[in-house]
């Protein structure tokens, strides 16, 4: 269990983890990650959405591509990616099924190792530490480069959760990994060393973290945390002087500043420097009373005044504390009443960014700071509440998704009906056209033409390839020859017969000269006729098939639409019912937490009242003692 990044970092962690672990990129160097070799376009498309953090689209496309067998080269990758995204959606059961299935399927070593790593992570999340350790033990052989540091970090976390701090420390000592994770690993190492009794070494590690120089808010918060942890540890060990030095490093404005101010005062107070203790405590009580450290500070200030024997100031501050606690308790009552009226969820979700996705990528935005809603941030810090809120928000997302599909499926139905109507309208015309075409006769004509061509080729019958004009000329010449036969032989008719002979010779000569070209051209035309016939036959077959298949297709689509509509309709009320349950659970969680706060404030108020009574008692006794 060691440290580790809190909620602000979780999304980034998760995305980084998914990207690096699933795809084997280089940790901490996303911008240098070489592109993946994509062998299936549809897998690349899944990656396109995945890398943009649009998990819903990515997962939908991954499932669709798997079902339609569009990712034959990336089946395992797609499954692994789907499992990872399901995990990020809080669907650890579905994710486990994916990983189990992958491991059953004798997959490649890198995929197997990554699946075991994921399972270990899942088990660790569920506090199944023994299973997590077992899963980690299955990781064998060569690991992707990015997985090595993460694996040892996870091993160390599991060991720490089991109380094996020595082993965890040994594993973390010298841990190498991405630069921005280094500080966390060192913090864990410090914790493991402290918990295993190696106080000096543990302090050294935390001290190093406590002197980080970094601009990022996340690492600055970690630095504050390390210094605060050191400060508290040393206070516990009655070393207030050194505790003071560490606490001094904590920023005045930051997530740990209130606790640090409180402890800073304690460190001074423990050295009997009440005046110095008042400096941080006075600063502290000027802050929002909603914070527990501020609430405690309200008691610390009058305590210091009492120690300085400034009883009037002490009494005044105790009264101020009682007033602040009572105001706070009234505010809590208002907040609880608002929650009971269901205003809490509205306030939180109304301020959420308009993300189109669910799961990790969503976080509630800061709620507006009204009296009722200022407690919501406190609730959000609780993991149980945040998980429940995310579930609730995811359910709303699912509701919206199904509402969208409800209208789309109506459009699909309309589309199908209009297609069917158009089909029915065009069918008679198509059938009429088909009946008007005699495919067999056309085929016979073609065959006859082909036979004639072959015959003329065999006999070298050049006249068979005569043009229409030549045929006309030939007919005219035959007619003229017939007419000449009926005329007497005179010099004029002899000249005409000679001209006719020459013309017939020219005709024969031209047909002979052009024969080869004409033969090639005719063969080419025949081939084109064959191709056209084949296309006609194909369309004919397609039309016949369409006539048989179309009604079945319409009916098939209709059945699918009906079935999908039924699934949508069945899911919608279930989602509403679970949303209601989830909302009730959220309200119950919130009310329990705020009631706890109220009890806590009541206890503080009792202490302040008691201290005030003692002060009055002391004053009264002193007055009585005077003559």
């Amino acid at each position: 269990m060691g440290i580790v990044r809190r909620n602000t970092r979780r999304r980034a962690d998760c995305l980084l983890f998914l990207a690096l672990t699933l795809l084997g990129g280089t940790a901490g160097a996303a911008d240098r990650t070489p592109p993946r070799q994509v062998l299936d376009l549809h897998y690349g498309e899944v990656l396109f959405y995945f890398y943009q953090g649009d998990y819903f689209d990515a997962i939908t496309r991954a499932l669709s591509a798997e079902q339609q067998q569009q990712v034959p080269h990336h089946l395992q990758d797609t499954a692994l990616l789907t499992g990872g995204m399901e995990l990020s959606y809080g669907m650890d059961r579905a994710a486990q099924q994916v990983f189990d299935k992958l491991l059953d399927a004798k997959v490649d070593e890198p995929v197997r190792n990554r699946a075991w790593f994921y399972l270990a992570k899942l088990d660790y999340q569920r506090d199944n530490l023994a299973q997590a350790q077992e899963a980690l033990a299955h990781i064998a052989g060569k690991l992707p480069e990015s997985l090595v540091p993460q694996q040892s970090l996870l091993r160390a976390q599991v060991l720490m959760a089991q109380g094996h701090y020595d082993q965890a420390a040994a594993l973390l000592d010298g841990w190498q990994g991405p630069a921005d994770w280094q500080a966390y690993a060192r913090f864990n190492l410090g914790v493991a060393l402290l918990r295993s009794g190696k106080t000096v070494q543990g302090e050294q590690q935390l001290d190093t973290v406590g002197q980080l120089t970094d601009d990022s808010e996340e690492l600055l918060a970690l630095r504050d945390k390390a210094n605060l942890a050191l400060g508290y540890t040393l206070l516990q060990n009655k070393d207030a002087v050194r505790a003071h030095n560490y606490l001094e490093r904590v920023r005045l404005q930051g997530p740990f500043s209130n606790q640090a101010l409180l402890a800073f005062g304690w460190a001074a107070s423990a050295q009997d420097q009440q005046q110095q203790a008042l400096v941080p405590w006075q600063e502290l009580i000027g802050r929002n009373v909603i914070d527990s450290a501020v609430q405690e500070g309200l008691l610390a200030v009058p305590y210091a005044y009492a120690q300085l024997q400034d009883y009037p100031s002490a009494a005044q501050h105790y009264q101020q504390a009682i007033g602040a606690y009572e105001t706070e308790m009234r505010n809590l009552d208002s907040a609880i009443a608002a929650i009971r009226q269901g205003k809490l969820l509205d306030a939180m979700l109304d301020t959420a960014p308009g993300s189109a996705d669910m799961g990790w990528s969503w976080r509630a935005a800061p709620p507006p700071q009204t009296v009722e809603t200022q407690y919501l941030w406190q609730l959000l810090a609780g993991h149980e509440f945040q998980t429940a809120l995310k579930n609730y928000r995811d359910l709303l997302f699912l509701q919206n998704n199904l509402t969208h599909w409800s209208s789309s499926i109506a459009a699909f139905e309309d589309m199908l009906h209009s297609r069917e109507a158009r089909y029915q309208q065009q069918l008679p015309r198509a059938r009429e056209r088909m009946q008007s075409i005699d495919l067999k006769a056309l085929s016979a004509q073609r065959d006859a033409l082909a036979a004639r061509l072959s015959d003329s080729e065999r006999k070298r019958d050049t006249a068979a390839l005569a043009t229409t004009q030549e045929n006309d000329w030939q007919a005219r010449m035959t007619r003229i020859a017939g007419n000449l036969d009926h005329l007497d032989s005179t010099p004029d008719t002899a000249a005409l017969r000679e001209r006719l002979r020459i013309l017939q010779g020219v005709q024969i000569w031209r047909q002979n000269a052009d024969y080869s070209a004409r033969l090639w051209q005719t063969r080419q035309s025949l081939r084109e006729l064959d191709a056209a016939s084949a296309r006609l036959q194909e369309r004919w077959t397609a039309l016949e098939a369409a006539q048989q298949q179309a009604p079945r297709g319409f009916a098939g689509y209709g059945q699918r639409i009906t079935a999908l509509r039924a699934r949508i309709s069945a899911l919608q009320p279930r989602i509403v019912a679970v949303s209601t349950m989830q909302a009730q659970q959220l309200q119950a969680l919130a009310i329990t937490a705020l009631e706890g706060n109220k009890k806590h404030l009541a206890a503080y108020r009792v202490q302040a009242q008691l201290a005030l009574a003692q002060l009055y008692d002391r004053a009264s006794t002193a007055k009585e003692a005077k003559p």
Partner: protein
Amino acid sequence: MSILRSLARRFSPSPLRERVRYGTAISFRAKPYAPSPWPSPPVGARGFYSLLSWVIISLLLQLPVFAHAADAPAAIDGQVQSLKSEVLNLNRDLFVLEEELLYPSSTQVAVFLSLDVGTFFKFDSAQVKIDDKVVANYLYTARELEALRRGGVHRIYMGNLNSGKHELVALFTGQGPNQRDYRRGATLNFDKSVGPKYIELKIVDKEGKQQPDFQIREWE
């Protein structure tokens, strides 16, 4: 006085007090601890430090990196998980139906775009024309470009075409070497048969020429 004293005794600090978790990373476990140092008598060091011991224990026992999905009551969480799975599967089936209805496989044409390295070309946008008609114009965001650079493939166009011969022209716009505006085109003549047709537009670096290269590839 005596009344006050008796009041004081009656309201003596409870040995049990709870601290609940607040809005920071320090979590105060609901555990009993010894009386607070306030009010008088002067702070009892033992009480003070026993509080601290709980604080430090809480400090050191932080939440793990990943969320505990099991934290939520199992019944509701189980139902939520089951609903999510069912809705995702339903989305898959609806997505497939939508594609089949809008783009039947006999006429389906999909154009994908991918980017390989992109050192010599800072890609901005692409235009796709089929048979001289603009069918897609897409301006990429930085996030989309990063996804492309890491291996993602964008389906820039999906439509229907009759079987037969067609021409696809792709125009790529961006900045080429030396920060110069760069606009290049590539053409593909393709045959659309009965099955779906997938075409990939690919921008690759030509190391030898120190220039980008634009390729169009038909997928089986």
